[in-house]
């Protein structure tokens, strides 16, 4: 976008305008998303508990209820406890909120050669996970700075929980990375083009199973019930945000819903095909770059709808779980992570590797041929295998060093195989 704007504006201004537009969009997304999700949660919890939920404000569905709440929170007094560490107390909500929002910087909403993304980070998965991990920081600071034992307990629980759940979460996220041969979320999303059979969740049994492990860990890492130990209202009043009120309090909530949304987005990109629908409708309709910019744009927007829809579905599932399952004890939470999720994630990771090794180039539980993008990764795998077992040097792949050709992701995907191939053959020929 900055490049586009630079045609009409001075460079510095173009960058600033582009940045402002992006940030505005993201904040809107998170803030509006939070509003929607709070409303949604109220409605869903109401339905689950056999009641209506909010109905008064904003018509029949009460869809303005959250907005009204927001206005109420804005007007509330900003209280700081007397014994608190005032600076940290004030900063803490922003830390959480910034971390939550920053994760959206690297999340693409539509793929292709010109993906819809704020900043294309080629280690996207990693970046998102790392930044999401920062959110806990604000929680802990809040818990400490509040000078309240409820808050401190909540913060401690949060810290222990999040640090532990980072491990299986990372392990789960590595599986799609391994299959796509890239840490780039755009690449990961694009390799799942075509029918829903190409979604990585359906790639093999291990990925199918590890998706559920991922979802569990994601739920835990964003402090959603049944893992909401940090704010367990029956034990700790309200946990880390006991002493907060007004806008600061609402920042925490926006961060939480933002995080929910981002992990769900991540799940949809990593496992559920991202912006690719269950059926290749955009191709059928010809909404590709080949048919002009307008068609391409419509296709991309369809993709955005797709990915957001999947993420919302994921959020809804989280809500469903929250209102269905009772809260775990803290030791049960830790046991779930350390005794079950981590070993399961490791085992499924190994399973996925073994499956890919034995059936390269196959998808949908090995029943179908992989799409072209996945195929190239598989070629890398099989080339490496061949180089390791066979001394015959296949055709030299020097031209495949990274170049500026448009399909960079393919090149990147192939890089693993090419480099491995060349180096392996070098080593095999006596380490010249």
């Amino acid at each position, binding site marked *: 976008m900055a490049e586009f704007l630079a045609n009409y504006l001075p*460079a510095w201004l173009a960058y600033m305008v582009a940045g402002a537009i992006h940030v505005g969009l993201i904040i809107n997304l998170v803030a509006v998303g939070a509003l929607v999700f709070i409303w949604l949660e109220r409605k869903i919890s109401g339905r689950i508990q056999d009641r209506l939920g909010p109905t008064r404000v904003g018509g029949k569905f009460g869809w303005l209820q959250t907005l009204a709440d927001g206005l109420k929170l804005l007007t509330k007094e900003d209280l700081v406890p007397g014994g608190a560490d005032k600076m940290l107390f004030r900063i803490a909500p922003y830390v959480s909120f910034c971390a939550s929002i920053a994760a959206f910087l690297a999340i693409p909403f539509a793929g292709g050669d010109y993906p819809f993304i704020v900043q294309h980070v080629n280690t996207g998965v990693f*970046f998102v996970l790392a930044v999401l*991990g920062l959110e806990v920081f604000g929680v802990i600071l809040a818990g400490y700075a509040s000078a309240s034992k409820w808050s401190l307990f909540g913060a401690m629980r949060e*810290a222990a929980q999040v640090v532990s759940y980072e491990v299986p979460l990372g392990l789960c996220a590595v599986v799609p990375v391994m299959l796509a041969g*890239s840490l780039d979320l755009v690449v990961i999303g694009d390799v799942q083009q075509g029918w829903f059979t190409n979604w990585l969740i359906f790639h093999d049994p291990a990925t199918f199973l590890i998706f559920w492990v991922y979802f569990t860990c994601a739920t835990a890492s964003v402090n959603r019930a049944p893992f909401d130990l940090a704010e367990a209202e029956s034990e700790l009043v309200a946990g880390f945000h006991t002493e907060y009120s007004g806008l600061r309090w609402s920042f925490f909530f926006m961060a939480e819903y933002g995080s929910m949304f981002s992990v769900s987005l991540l799940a949809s990109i990593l496992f559920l095909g991202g912006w690719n629908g269950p059926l290749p409708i955009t191709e059928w309709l010809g909404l590709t770059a080949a048919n002009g910019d307008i068609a391409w744009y419509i296709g991309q927007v369809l993709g955005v709808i797709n990915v957001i829809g999947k993420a919302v579905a994921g959020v809804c599932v989280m809500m469903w779980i929250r209102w269905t399952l009772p809260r775990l004890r803290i030791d049960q939470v830790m046991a779930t992570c350390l005794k079950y999720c981590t070993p399961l994630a490791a085992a499924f990771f190994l399973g996925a590797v073994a499956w890919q090794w034995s059936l390269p180039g196959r998808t949908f539980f090995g029943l179908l041929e992989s799409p072209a993008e996945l195929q190239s990764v598989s070629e890398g795998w099989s080339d490496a295998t061949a180089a390791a077992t066979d001394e015959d040097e296949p055709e030299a792949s020097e031209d495949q*060093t990274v170049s500026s050709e448009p399909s960079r992701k393919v090149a990147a995907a192939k890089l693993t195989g090419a480099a491995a191939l060349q*180096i*392996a053959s070098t080593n095999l020929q006596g380490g*010249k």
Partner: protein
Amino acid sequence: MGDGIYWPTFFFLLFSALACGFALAVVFSRNVVRMAFYLVMSLASTAGLFFLAGEDFVGAMQLMIYVGGTLVLLIFGVMLTSQKQFVEMKTPAGQWIVGLVTGCALVALLWMAAFETPQWQPISRAEAEAVAVQPTATPIGVALTNGRVDQLDQPDETLRGGMSSYLLPFEIVSVHLLVVLIGAAYLARAKRRSPSAAAPG
């Protein structure tokens, strides 16, 4: 474009100012929790510098591991120093003066060394803009397991074999980590009093 603001430099200044400022805040803060907070900020800014230098992977790694590690530090700080008398431990003023003088001297020395070396001067703007963005995770991953993609066109044949990979250091570091984890758990484990020491009855 042209001779306008070169944005990477702008962000470099921003992030380095943040990193240095928070680092100084760490030095001058007396509260251990605040120190930890400033430290995280400083480290995060450093991660930003890493991103600017084109090393996305290391930057993300920095965020992830340091945040995790510092988080634990923070928890310890809170737990161990929650009693008031330990929160603030004053250092004598004389030591402060000596330390600051030494620190300034050292900084001056290091800056001098850095800026006086011709090889470390900046390249021209055109040259910098010509550098292509490359993925960083894959080469590092390959280098850790298989070989060096950045050395594929190494002209010296004899050197190519030696540039095979960082697999062995990687393994050593892995084992080292495991050992450290076990050792730390052993060191920090709760000491149970032996039953014989318990009061009779």
